[in-house]
């Protein structure tokens, strides 16, 4: 039997009713292994106006580069204090902030190694289907050989890089549409 996946529709402007109960803006607890990182930014539209009704979901490996999922059969340790899932709403100014640990490197296809990254889904009114992007960390040596970054036009790669500010907080924005700074989104 072959079926086709159900058509995606927007979360609409009132998703908070159904989804905020599972918000996870703090992905790590005090026992989680790894380097703490805070990531903050803003979601804006094609006019540069803030998007105040978006929501992000985050999926990432633990500090050892292991996903808490049965498909990950690497000989690396799970961290009982880390699930790797975040659900992060934006505020009235379209801003979001979450804290987590920096993931380790994870295997890519064909024997490659992927630089530390977070998978990010973007939901909002006006997004009939959620967007998928990634957060990498600026200055991370492994970025140079990351197989997915290599697929992204060089001039757009910086949209995927979170940049640490003077206080060490990583800044990363989501530009849904734009001539210059539009975030790279993936055909998943």
């Amino acid at each position, binding site marked *: 039997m072959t079926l086709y996946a159900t058509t995606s529709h927007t979360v609409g402007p009132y998703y908070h009713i*159904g989804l905020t109960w599972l918000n996870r803006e703090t992905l790590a607890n005090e026992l989680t292994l790894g380097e703490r990182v805070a990531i903050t930014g803003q979601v804006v539209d094609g006019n540069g106006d803030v998007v105040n009704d978006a929501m992000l979901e985050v999926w990432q490996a633990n500090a050892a580069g292991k996903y808490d999922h049965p498909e990950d059969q690497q000989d690396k340790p799970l961290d009982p204090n880390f*699930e790797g899932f975040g659900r992060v709403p934006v505020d009235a100014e379209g801003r979001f902030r979450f804290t987590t640990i920096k993931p380790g490197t994870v295997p890519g296809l064909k024997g490659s190694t992927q630089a530390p990254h977070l*998978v990010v889904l973007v939901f909002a009114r*006006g997004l009939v289907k959620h967007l998928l992007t990634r957060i990498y960390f600026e200055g991370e040596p492994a970025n140079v050989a990351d197989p997915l970054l290599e697929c992204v036009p060089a001039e757009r790669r910086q949209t995927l890089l979170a940049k640490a500010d003077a206080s060490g907080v990583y800044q990363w924005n989501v530009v*849904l*549409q734009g001539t210059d700074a539009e975030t*790279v989104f993936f055909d998943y």
Partner: protein
Amino acid sequence: MTDKPGYRRPQAGTQPDYLHPTYQSTNLRSPSKPLVYLPHSLSEITGPTIGAEHVAEKDNDLTAQHDGEPLGERIIIHGRVLDEDGLPVPGILVEIWQANAAGRYNHARDLHDAPLDPNFTGTGRTVTDADGWYQFQTIKPGAYPWGNHHNAWRPAHIHFSLFGPSILTRLVTQMYFPGDPLLAYDPIYNCVPDTSAKERLIAAFDLEKTIPSYALGYRWDIVLRGREATPMEK
């Protein structure tokens, strides 16, 4: 290590493009640059296994969350979550939210001039059982106006959010009711060209599920992306 299979790409016409001009909110929120093709690595064939541990038994009854009963037509919605091979997807989180019987959301930003119902929040969740079944008890939501175009009304619908075996099976969608005359005019319902795909968003009246003198039954099955048989080369 051999690469594991990824997930199937959508059948043509069954998933929306980001830009859908008749749904005006897409005009400034859809990417204008080409999407970058994403091969499915370990980062994508894994995903959050969020579910049972967060859900209480009565979280699937939206009519029992307050002291009194909500106004409206009591309904039971049930169905199966399957993958594209028709196999059940057990143990996954299903979240829903909806307007009340008057077509008003219990949300600060909903300014529609229709009454709130103190006995209805409009939030539910459950976990699929071993055979992929889910069930909710709620009231039928009302249609409501929105500002998309002159005299625009959303057909009655319930928002559904599902996880699944991987981050690629994540699905947010809306379920509709049979025979709703507003469907023909709704730019969100009509955001894909494939007529069958649209019709699969409409629940079927289910007399067998209908509880005499109590609630009408509806059946709605949901399909999550299936797995490729072998790793895909691009």
